[in-house]
């Protein structure tokens, strides 16, 4: 079933100024899905960290590119998750992280995190912990424009 509420997509320049705006948009999407507060805080922490890594490392010394984030709602019979991919077209090296807390935060806040690198860039895929279905029917989740 295609409904706009279950899909989130944004592309922004790899500039630290963009991160707060990005988080606000992600927060609105999750609030629109009636995502529970604790899981929402975790998801924003984790996805923001992936985006921060992309902004910080992906385009070092090169031409600043974009960061592309796509979020999908995956609803099962008894629970739902979001799967978010954060993609950049640079050379993202987690070992450059000054603290190493980035991976800890991503893994600690999400159900599963994977990183795939290829010649075209890096894609981080984050799957949230399952949260309960909303009280209304799945169809009821679709926000009326």
């Amino acid at each position, binding site marked *: 079933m295609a409904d706009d509420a279950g899909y989130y997509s944004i592309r922004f320049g790899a500039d630290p*100024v963009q*991160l707060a705006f990005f988080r606000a948009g992600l927060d609105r999407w999750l609030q629109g899905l009636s995502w529970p507060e604790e899981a929402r805080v*975790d998801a924003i*922490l984790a996805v923001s960290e992936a985006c921060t890594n992309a902004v910080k490392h992906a385009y070092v010394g090169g031409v600043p590119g974009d960061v592309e984030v796509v979020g999908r709602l995956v609803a099962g019979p008894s629970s739902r998750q979001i799967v978010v991919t954060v993609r950049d077209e640079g050379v993202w090296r987690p070992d450059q992280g000054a603290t190493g807390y980035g991976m800890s935060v991503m893994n600690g806040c999400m159900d599963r995190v994977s990183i795939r690198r290829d010649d075209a860039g890096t894609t981080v895929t984050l799957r949230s912990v399952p949260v309960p279905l909303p009280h209304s029917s799945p169809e009821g989740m679709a926000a009326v424009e």
Partner: protein
Amino acid sequence: MQHTHDTTPVQPSESDDQITVVTRDAGAGRVVLEIGGEVDMLTSPQLRTAALAALADDPRVVVLALDSVSFLGTSGLAVLIEVREAAQQAGVDLRLACTGRRVLRPLSIAGLIPMFDVRDTVEDALA
């Protein structure tokens, strides 16, 4: 302390590239820094500058009041660790005052809670 962020969506505004820092002299060598806003890659240097400046005044106790912080990323965690080390070297008692999940969650996940003296309220942190 009733700073709830649960129901307030983060609204982008012109101030998004700034955090707020209010420094208050609590007397007897105690300084309180009230921090507000989103502490991320962009804004964490502001926190660093303000906290290190407070330490430079040779206080006895520095309290970072973090309940108005609506986001704390790992850039902010790195600054807190740096400030903690600077406080130890300067012989200053550093305390954090916060109860909000948006601050405690990243501290907890990174395993940093035991490294800090975390109190529920500023009053408690000043005691």
